[in-house]
């Protein structure tokens, strides 16, 4: 999608505030006995260290050509295949043992229909017993109330946040770039999406130290599995 192209050059700096998720996805990749796919691979923030540490080939899919250009340059010589595509509508040559979406990228999906399309597409692309892993923030009213309307400087990336509560949406705007949107989702909705896609919950962690998810958690770290 073109709106992400205009963020490509600052994406890694902007994403610097993400929780440290790489080791978690590396561990899942080590356990995967078959093809590994990252959706919304972007500039390769997770895929490149993951390929380097595991030595396993990975297919990364993203809808932004500009993001993929950066990833391609950095991944030179590594077995990371980068493909321009839409996660709502992708096809694999052979079923995957692991599909993962780090960096809260599923929150860029608009509305139930888009999310359902992705979850069903993932389910179809997994081999029996294959895993689907992703993370997303748990919406916090205190964070929202303190950040709404604020202009933030995150590692030099100046951006403004606006919360549209009726649509459970955050608009992220930056001078000279397209406005990005995030839609926050509840635990119940994630469970619904796994349900309609026929995926079982293997684990829900509250963070990347694999602590249990509790009432005090701030991050959903899901590992789901296609029934064998």
């Amino acid at each position, binding site marked *: 999608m073109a709106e992400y192209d205009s963020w490509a050059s600052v994406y890694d700096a902007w994403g610097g505030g993400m929780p440290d998720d790489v080791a978690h996805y590396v561990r899942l990749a080590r356990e995967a006995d078959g093809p590994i796919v990252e959706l919304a691979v972007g500039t390769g923030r997770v895929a490149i260290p993951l390929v380097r540490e595991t030595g396993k080939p990975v297919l990364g899919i993203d809808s932004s050509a500009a993001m993929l250009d950066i990833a391609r340059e950095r991944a030179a010589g590594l077995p990371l295949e980068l493909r321009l595509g839409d996660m709502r509508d992708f096809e694999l040559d052979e079923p995957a043992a692991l599909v993962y979406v780090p960096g809260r990228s599923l929150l860029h999906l608009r*509305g*139930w*229909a888009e*999310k*359902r399309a992705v979850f069903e597409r993932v389910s179809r692309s997994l081999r029996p017993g294959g895993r689907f892993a992703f993370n997303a923030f*748990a*919406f*916090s*009213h*205190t*964070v*929202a*109330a*303190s950040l*709404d309307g604020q202009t933030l400087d995150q590692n030099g990336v100046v951006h403004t946040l606006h*919360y*549209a*509560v*009726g*649509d*459970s*949406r955050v608009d992220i705007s930056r001078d000279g770039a397209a406005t990005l949107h995030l*839609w*926050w*989702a*509840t*635990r*119940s*909705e994630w*469970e*619904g*999406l796994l*349900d*309609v896609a026929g995926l079982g919950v293997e684990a829900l962690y*509250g963070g990347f130290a694999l602590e249990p*998810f*509790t*009432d*005090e*958690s*701030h991050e959903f770290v899901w590992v789901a599995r296609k029934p064998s």
Partner: protein
Amino acid sequence: MAEYDVWAPDYDDWAADMTEDVPFYVDLAREAAEPIVELGIGTGRIAIPIARATGKRVIGIDRSPAMLAVGRDRAGELPVEFREGDFRDFTLEAPVDLVICPFRALLHAATWPDKRRVFESVAAALKPGGRFAWNSFVFSPFIAARIHDQRQTRGGDLWEVVRHVPADNRIDLTRGRGDREDGMVRLWWVTKSEWEGLLDVAGLEVEALYGWFDKRPFDDESLEFVWVARKPA
């Protein structure tokens, strides 16, 4: 459920601020054949005006015997039947034209499987072309941040303390009157996208989503979901 029983004596006082939903649901009932089904009928705040205004029979389902007893008493000779039951798992003698669930009662369903069962039960209870209408608040982080953990008074000596548990999209409400604490109930807030998902899995279609009972369009600033869905004809 017992936790709702303790609220029964004061329930109408709690609901005193909410009046604009009554004509909305009465209008839907006028367009439907009887019987009308209300989930979470409570003390009959909506069902009684429907029966009075339309003369149509209303079947109301609720899990709190104490609420139902208050409602039965108030309904007198009106054609309102108060049934004890669980809205996740109700069955009717015959399919109906209209099921309603006013006053955010669906937010008492805790998890996706609970909510899915309600929506599937509703779809099974409707005739082809029949309608399901409900409302719920939009969870506003701005309101939540303002009232979190504050003791608030409403109508005389009634009070409530609201605690928000965002990881579970949950609101814990502790209520009481004067020196007396009446216990806690929980609400689980739902986003627009999840409501769409529940309609989707139940095979219901959206007829309208309003931002309030005056049928203003729902938009980014709306604070209430007022849904009218339809079972395909």
